[in-house]
């Protein structure tokens, strides 16, 4: 049975195969590709800073930051000012925050038979986008991060304004999403305490418990995070066993016979990426408790994604205080990238998980560009003998609408998958 899945930043089809009224296999297909990697070929390296954000309308900022990191990896002895490092992290945090709000209120709620809460998605998204615009000029589709720093200079007034915008979004979260002190939430060790609170998140979680869905949608319990930064720990976690040392060179893409999306593996294994992976690596107390009770189920996936909002907001409030307006925001690289021959890798944590960009520059011209997106990790289309992460999460269910819910807890981005 084939089902068209829409409103996932494009579409995908799921072709379900049943045995004894249970899903035995799901073929995940993406039907078109836009050829961004081809478009980049033979262009000057800095063009990638303009083209790549346009890979994706919802997480384009992650593509910008991955691009600038990949380009900087090609320049020897590059000095990156601390201010630029902080501000890039901040604008990326802000993108994650708005993506999570949009996913919860626009994508997830309808899957529970509820109406979309359009304004609850757009109000905090617009507020945090103002913070991005203050730093980067506009959102979406800016190119403000360049090798050596950022294009803008941030003033004390900008810092004060950004702080108040973050505070506004924290208030929104505490008023609508989870009626509690969000700082306490960061220390909370018991997921059951969350269920006793009011707000849109506890309502959904309680609904899941009522429907006995809290154990559904488990996959391999195998997580990976490549874009470590001042908040996220990089590494992999297999059934809570954490290894910090991972190398993006072991990440491989494979063509798919019947889908335009490529599969991705680390040392030949499929891994889950995204907020649950990040929480497992960060050992976030609340999410670890959810994982201990319900493992890598849709419950843990949902709570991990939404609870990343206050974590990132409070962390951003800390980060912004570290800006030193007397120090530089850009230091011109000693080597001109339009003349180099080199290879570079850039890894970041996008809303949906690890995003990897690889570039080969030959004499100041892009020879090859490879983009590996989070959705490719989660949605790799394996075989019945070797299922991908989302496939494994859906197998064994009997209802395809419920399988769609499981599928969408990975927060699918179709356009990224088919760059």
């Amino acid at each position, binding site marked *: 049975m084939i089902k068209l899945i*829409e409103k996932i930043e*494009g579409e995908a089809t799921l072709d379900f195969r049943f045995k004894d009224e249970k899903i035995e296999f799901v073929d995940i297909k993406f039907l078109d590709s*836009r050829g961004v990697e081809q*478009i980049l070929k033979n262009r000057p390296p800095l063009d990638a800073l303009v083209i790549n954000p346009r890979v*994706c309308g919802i997480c384009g900022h992650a593509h910008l930051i991955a691009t600038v990191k990949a380009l900087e990896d090609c320049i020897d002895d590059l000095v990156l000012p601390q201010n630029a490092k902080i501000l890039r992290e901040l604008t990326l945090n802000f993108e994650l925050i708005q993506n999570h709000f949009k996913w919860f209120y626009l994508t997830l709620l*309808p899957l529970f038979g509820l109406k979309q809460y359009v304004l609850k998605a757009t109000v905090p998204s617009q507020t945090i986008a*103002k913070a991005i615009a203050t730093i980067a*000029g506009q959102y979406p589709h800016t*190119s*403000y991060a360049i090798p050596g720093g950022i294009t803008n200079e941030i003033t004390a007034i900008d810092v004060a304004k950004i702080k108040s915008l973050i505070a506004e979004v924290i208030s929104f979260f505490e008023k609508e999403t989870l009626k509690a002190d969000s700082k306490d939430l960061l220390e909370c060790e018991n997921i059951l305490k969350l269920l006793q609170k009011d707000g849109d998140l506890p309502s959904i979680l309680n609904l899941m418990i009522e429907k006995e869905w809290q154990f559904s949608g488990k996959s391999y319990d195998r997580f990976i995070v490549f874009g470590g930064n001042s908040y996220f720990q990089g590494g992999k976690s297999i059934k809570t066993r954490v290894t910090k040392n991972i190398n993006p060179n072991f990440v491989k893409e494979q063509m798919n016979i019947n889908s335009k999306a490529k599969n991705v593996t680390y040392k030949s294994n499929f891994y889950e990426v995204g907020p649950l992976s990040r929480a497992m690596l960060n050992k976030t107390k609340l999410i670890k408790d959810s994982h201990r009770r319900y493992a890598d189920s849709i419950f843990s996936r949902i709570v991990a994604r939404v609870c990343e909002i206050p974590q990132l907001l409070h962390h951003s409030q800390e980060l912004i205080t570290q800006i030193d307006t007397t120090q530089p925001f850009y230091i011109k690289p000693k080597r001109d990238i339009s003349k180099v021959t080199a290879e570079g890798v850039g890894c970041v944590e996008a809303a949906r998980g690890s995003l990897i960009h690889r570039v080969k520059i030959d004499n100041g011209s892009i020879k090859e560009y490879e983009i590996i997106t989070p959705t490719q990790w989660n949605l790799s289309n394996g075989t019945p003998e070797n299922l991908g992460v989302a496939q494994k999460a859906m197998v064994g269910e009997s209802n395809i609408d419920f399988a769609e819910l499981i599928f969408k807890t990975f927060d699918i981005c179709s356009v990224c998958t088919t760059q």
Partner: protein
Amino acid sequence: MRLIWITAIACNGNSHSFLNYPHLEQFLKDFEFVYHPILDGKYSLEDVVCNDLECDILLIEGAISPDFKKANKPIFNTISRYANRAKAILTIGTCATFGGIFAENRTSYVTGLHFSGKKPTSLFHSIKDKTVSISGCPIHPQTLVDTLYTIKSGLKLHLDEYLRPKEFFAYTVHNGCIRNEYFEYKIDNHRFGEKEGCMFYDNGCQAPYTRGSCNKILWNETNSKTRAGVPCMGCSEPEFPKVGFFRTKKNMGIPETLPLDVTKRSYLTLAGITKAFKIKRLEEDLF
């Protein structure tokens, strides 16, 4: 007014930019989405491509190609069906208008609805007189919404040669840029990471010859790329994306592309005069 928003070869950036429109609550009372790629409506995508639903305005996001299918149906068929019954058609973004970034992939024939870059195509000729182009990568949400309200009110829009509303596209992105004084007096020592300086002379800013409203109506009600030191990439124009961003191509020290309708001779004359100015205020840091 009933709207159908259909996405072709796109990144969804326009859909998301639209969600940044600050008065969305009122907008959603005044307009009804029969279909939108993110917001829920009464119908599914399959309903849209298989049926003939009511539609007053058709909005097209993304470049189009005869090979491209949406929900298994050729996008050309879906566009034709709704364009014929709609009162107006809007191309949303540079891809839908001119082909944009995804037209750079030369493996198939990818264009905008009526234009392939600057060149008019023969596609959908019969509906051209009811098309309005809102270019930009992405669109500024205000330009889209204001245009929709104008159409709803039955008022006449003044359009340019690419069918873009002049209210937004008769201006250049340069208009309203707070770095203008550095341009006027030709102070060409811009460095990234600073509030001072103009990116036109060395860093590839296309604002003086790009039509758009970026500095007329600020982004996210806050800022613009050029104000934040990002050179204008010319994303609302038919030739976007040109090759070689962040760098001003020059011949004998003169920028290859001059501000809109300025001749080389008058540019050189003006440059000579501005060199006579020595404005201390503009040579120092602002703060």
